[in-house]
């Protein structure tokens, strides 16, 4: 009798187990998808994120202002030929720009927003060359002598030409350099090896000093020893600020946001912003035409694209 009871019990237990298993597997097979999760709209999320009350504001402010005492050391390191690399948790954008505004007044400063998706480094180098040229002219007025007047405009020169100009050892004014401030040198637009090589070459020029920040824990893997020791020549500065990454994350799509129309508009605007001014104007003309003729439903755009390609190929062949 007892044995029967035990058997019955065991049978009940195993039946329940298999029932539960079955139920579990049937639940797994349900047609629910990840995309069905009701995610909040991006606009709304951004709004909520913007309204998050920042904590320890006073302490963060105090911490950031405490770095001001190091400005003179940083400037000294820069003038000794090092490049500054800021690391540590928190946005370092405000801190770096404050340092540049207060301490680097004698030098021209170009800011590169590495957190954006695409950056044209050639344009940056052209700007640096133009600024150095201006700085040299300014220096020349105070001293005697004259710069060579027959100067080819910088925007038509090749990259290696520009870098040679920035690296010229025989310029008369020796301690004359321009500064380049790179926020997030490990950002998405600069993460590829070509950009890093280019940045390393810029940093190694004798008339350029670089101040950069990193936020990714593996950022140093972007560089080999040649770049680290002979080109960038980093002077590491640990400057945690605990400030929110408000600006840096603005151009990044939220992972938890709904991929609705708002986001595609955002993405399109990021792409448009990364284009050259000429290309932006072309797209503006197309968009205006499209808005003026809503009945054509993109016909114009198609014909325009094919014309554009044809024209491009003709130009290239010639």
């Amino acid at each position: 009798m007892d044995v029967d009871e035990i058997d019955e019990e065991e049978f009940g237990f195993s039946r329940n187990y298999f029932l539960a298993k079955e139920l579990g597997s049937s639940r797994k097979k349900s047609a629910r998808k990840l995309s069905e999760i009701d995610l909040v709209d991006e606009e709304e999320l951004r709004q909520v994120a913007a309204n998050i009350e920042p904590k320890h504001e006073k302490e963060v402010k105090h911490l950031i202002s405490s770095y001001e005492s190091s400005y003179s050391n940083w400037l000294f390191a820069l003038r000794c030929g090092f490049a500054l690399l800021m690391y540590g948790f928190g946005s370092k954008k405000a801190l770096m720009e404050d340092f540049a505004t207060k301490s680097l007044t004698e030098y021209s400063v170009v800011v590169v927003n590495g957190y954006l998706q695409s950056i044209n480094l050639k344009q940056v180098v052209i700007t640096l060359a133009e600024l150095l040229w201006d700085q040299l002219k300014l220096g020349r007025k105070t001293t005697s002598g004259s710069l060579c007047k027959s100067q080819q405009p910088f925007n038509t020169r090749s990259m290696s030409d520009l870098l040679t100009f920035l690296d010229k050892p025989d310029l008369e004014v020796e301690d004359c350099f321009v500064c380049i401030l790179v926020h997030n040198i490990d950002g998405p637009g600069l993460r590829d090896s070509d950009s890093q090589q280019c940045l390393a070459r810029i940093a190694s020029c004798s008339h350029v000093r670089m101040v950069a920040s990193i936020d990714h824990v593996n950022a140093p893997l972007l560089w080999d020893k040649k770049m680290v020791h002979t080109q960038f020549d980093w002077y590491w500065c640990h400057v945690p600020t605990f400030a929110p990454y408000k600006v840096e994350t603005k151009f990044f799509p939220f992972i938890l946001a709904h991929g609705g129309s708002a986001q595609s508009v955002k993405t399109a605007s990021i792409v448009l912003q990364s284009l050259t001014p000429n290309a932006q104007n072309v797209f503006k003309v197309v968009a205006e035409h499209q808005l003026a003729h809503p009945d054509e439903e993109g016909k114009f755009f198609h014909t325009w694209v094919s014309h554009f390609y044809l024209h491009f190929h003709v130009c290239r062949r010639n």
Partner: protein
Amino acid sequence: MYVTAFECLLSQPFFVLHKASKSSESSAVMSPGKPRKRRLDSSPKVSLNSESLKENLKMEVFPYVWSKIESNIKDVLRSINADVFDEIGRWVRESFNKICSCRGPVDPSKSTLPYPFVQNGGLVKKLFTALVFTKNIETVDDILTFSELGLNLKSHGCYVANISSLDFSTKNGIGGCLRAFLRQLLMVDIEAADVSLLASWYSDHGKYEKPVVVIIEDMERCSGALLSDFIKMLSEWSVKIPIILIAGVATSTDAPANVLTSRALQYLSTSMFFLKSPAERMDAIIEAVLVKNCAGFSVGHKVATFLRNYFLRQDGTVTSFVRALKMALVQQLSIEPLSFVLKILVDEGDNKRSWYEDLANLPEEVINHAFELPSYRTYSVNRNNHAELNAMSLDHGLSELQRLQDLWRSRLMCLHEAGRYHKVALLDLYLEALDPELYNSRLSNHGCDNAKDKSLLSDSDKLFRLQKAEVTNQVIRKIRDLPAAKLSQLLKSWEGLTRGTVEVHEKIMELQSQMVSGDVKSHKAELTDNSKRHINRHRLNMEKDACTSNDKAMTLAGQTIR
């Protein structure tokens, strides 16, 4: 949507934050390349507050001191490579002569076609190649070596192009490396690169008496297929344009076989050359910069330990060591307000002069700071010096400090000379010499010796001290085993090193004269006495004499480190 200018800047890939306000006067002082020959002039003619005065002083000192150190390091590296460079230079000349001897009379009209005109077909398509073994997996140390090699060959009448593995990337293809190669020789940017351009350049200007040398810094990092193609292409032209290849190899003799295709290997006629190892270079740099006081400052034990560990266990490159040294100088200047004195110390070289004039120009505040320093206090206590604290006494203090440092350096170098026979690294000796614990223990040991109370030291204590000063003790112990010839050689080098210090120098001279008289005695004995018994006794005596000289030398070395 309304966008503020600020937001616009945030979304711009780049923007100009501000332009240079004015060309600064203080910045003009900094000139990394050429140090200005200026005395420390900080007399209060210019109304500057003390902060900006200090800023200006350190800005003036850094380029001056660093350029000295840097050029010193470059000289050291150049001299360490000099033998290999000479050897390579000779080989280049010989290879060029071989190419010239096998090529027939040159016909400029046909010189832009690849296939060579050859008299005896033996050397067709063979490319003379030097494999330079760097003994260092990190190519970063050899960038300078190969550029120096290039300059050296240029000065000996070769056309030289330095190409790195970056030019051999598959993305740019063979055109990329060819462009880099031609750009350096022809000095123009070429869109469509072709070797025939080089051939016409070579024949146009009648450059037949000079070889063309291509230096590839890091062979292993190049794309194998691309490098093979490049070698094949060069070999086709190797007689018409006498191209000679020099390739840096970081790993082993198998490297070319691993990188190149077997076909490309057949085109090569290789010779091997070996550079000095990073440890040897490191020792040479330490000697030249830190021990021989070129830097004007000494690094502390903690910094030296860090540098050594970083070099041996992590990075292994001389480049990072040099960088760390530069950083140390920046730190020193930033933290220590008196460090501008470095300029005077470095300025000296061999011609010593009084610094009084320079020091007298300094503001009183700065001089007073110097008297607060522990080194000056020790000096004045030792001397019972209660003289007035002014520039004159600071001048005396500084000269005394330098005298002591010179003494310390000469003794360290004596130990290093002794350690050379057993390949002891100077870095290790340097580190032990800097260790304050060892210094204190030696002092107390010395005290115990005097008090004849050695039993006070426990055995474990002694063992600990022995282990701590392992390298130094080892070097001293091994002096006993040195053969007489080497010992006299060692004494001779010691004599040179301790020339400035009277007591040690005298002892060395005494030892030397003892050894010489021993030699003379034994020589005479040999001449007068030929019997077997006497020779045996005489040998025993000689060994005994040698032992006592070795012991004396050992004791002397032991005394020097106290």
